[in-house]
């Protein structure tokens, strides 16, 4: 028995959002008489941080503290339409819609404040701490709460805004096949190092090093969390999980977590990540989306690392010990490639 180490890399271009009949999302923002704001969405946060990021985007655009914004999501009865949380589109599409809605609401808020302070709205600015004051004269100030109360009870105005962000459908040119399926791409490169036991065919992860270019990281801790966790979803697809192990034959499909394998805490390895921020021109505050791309480069990098380690090319997933072992046997033993 010998253990062979190998290293493989992969780079990806990742399109943000999708192109199935246009890709829209909507948001509504309104102030409550307390001066706090509610963002109504039907977009879903399933743990990836949509609520946190849209809250930050709304607060930043309105010019109010992040604590003053509440995001109400995931009820399609009360929230405006969203295509959904997939295709890494949340931050980019929903974020842009929230930004547009917050911009409109901010316009009304500044008009209402101008009326109270008896100045021109163009002369006002927000301090980000819940106050609006005359530029250069911070003492001529009114709190967003007092503006909200005045709008509600004196002026009869709703401080509210509507936002939609739509990437229109791009049709395929019938002559050339050309199309522009998306407006914004993120990029990544990942190097995976594996160790393979040539007696069992088992592949163990040794380390990963990666670089992700994903526009502005609006919440760096959430981005890091996504990249760390998502890489293991990639490893899982590369080495462990499948609903149809003998695809297209559906037999022996897993029925539970004992048969549908995933990495456990003992299977993980060090992973160094570099995040490169190159703001996207059409993203909210320059953001793209770190969603699915965190898993994507892992699969080809692991497959390449396996080739580098034992000289076998396995082109169907997951790369189970059985497949590795059969391939090693078929070529008459492990053939480690030049170490890169």
């Amino acid at each position, binding site marked *: 028995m010998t253990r062979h180490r190998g290293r493989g890399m992969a780079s990806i271009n990742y399109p943000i959002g999708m192109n199935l009949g246009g890709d829209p999302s909507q948001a509504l923002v309104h102030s409550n008489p307390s001066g706090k704001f509610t963002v109504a969405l039907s977009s879903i946060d399933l*743990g990836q941080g949509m609520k946190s990021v849209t809250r930050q985007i709304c607060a930043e655009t309105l010019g109010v503290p992040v604590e003053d914004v509440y995001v109400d999501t995931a009820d399609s009865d009360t929230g405006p339409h969203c295509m959904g949380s997939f295709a890494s589109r949340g931050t980019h599409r929903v974020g842009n819609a929230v930004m547009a809605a917050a911009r409109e609401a901010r316009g009304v808020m500044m008009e209402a404040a101008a009326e109270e302070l008896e100045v021109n709205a163009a002369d006002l600015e927000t301090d980000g701490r819940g106050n609006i004051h005359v530029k250069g004269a911070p003492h001529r100030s009114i709190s967003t709460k007092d503006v909200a109360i005045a709008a509600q009870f004196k002026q009869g105005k709703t401080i509210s805004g509507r936002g939609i962000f739509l990437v229109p459908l791009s049709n395929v040119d019938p002559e050339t096949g050309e199309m522009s399926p998306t407006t914004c791409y993120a990029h990544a490169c990942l190097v995976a190092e594996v160790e393979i036991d040539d007696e069992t065919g088992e592949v163990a992860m040794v380390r990963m090093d990666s670089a992700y270019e994903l526009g502005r990281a609006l919440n760096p*801790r959430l981005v*890091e*969390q996504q990249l*760390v966790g998502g890489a293991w*979803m990639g490893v899982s697809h590369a080495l462990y999980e499948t609903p149809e192990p003998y695809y297209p034959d559906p037999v022996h499909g897993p029925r539970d977590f004992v048969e549908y394998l*995933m990495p456990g*805490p003992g299977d993980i390895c060090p*992973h160094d990540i570099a995040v490169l921020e190159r703001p996207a021109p059409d993203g909210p505050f320059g953001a793209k989306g770190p969603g699915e791309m965190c898993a994507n480069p892992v699969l080809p990098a692991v497959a390449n690392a396996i080739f580098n380690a034992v000289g076998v090319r396995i082109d169907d997933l997951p790369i189970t010990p059985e497949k590795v072992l059969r391939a090693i046997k078929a070529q008459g033993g492990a053939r480690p490639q030049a170490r890169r």
Partner: protein
Amino acid sequence: MSKIPLQFRHNGRDVAIFVDGGTNLLVALRELIGDMTPKFGCGQGGCGTCSVLVDGELHLSCLTLAETVAGRTIETLDGMKQGPNLHPLQRAFADNFAAQCGYCTPGMLMAAKALLDRNPSPSRDEVVEAISGNICRCTGYEPIINAILAAAGGRVSA
């Protein structure tokens, strides 16, 4: 089948319920006591999200017959917070971004508590071993391991 009367201590409170023979502890906790913090994941001990402490020892409540805990002490995530304050482990999970969808979190926290209660300063390998019966889909485990080590080292903002 006749009902079996059952008494045990649940998060510092004595409870008495009637269970059908064969009822598992997870169902007893969720449906009869109303403690929804232990989650149903796989129902066969493969994922760990139903983990609870029985007399301080980590158990999979989905594989534990309710009648076997008569007179014993059950701790679940519902009893973890200390008055109005989060338990240091809960604080550490929040500070270290150790949850995304959150479905594994109750089991992870109970597994971590079982470890720290008997070994207040574990090594990284001991932490990995302690949560090895728990599956997490989102985090890649690293933030969870770091959170448990932070709680053990007292490196948690109150």
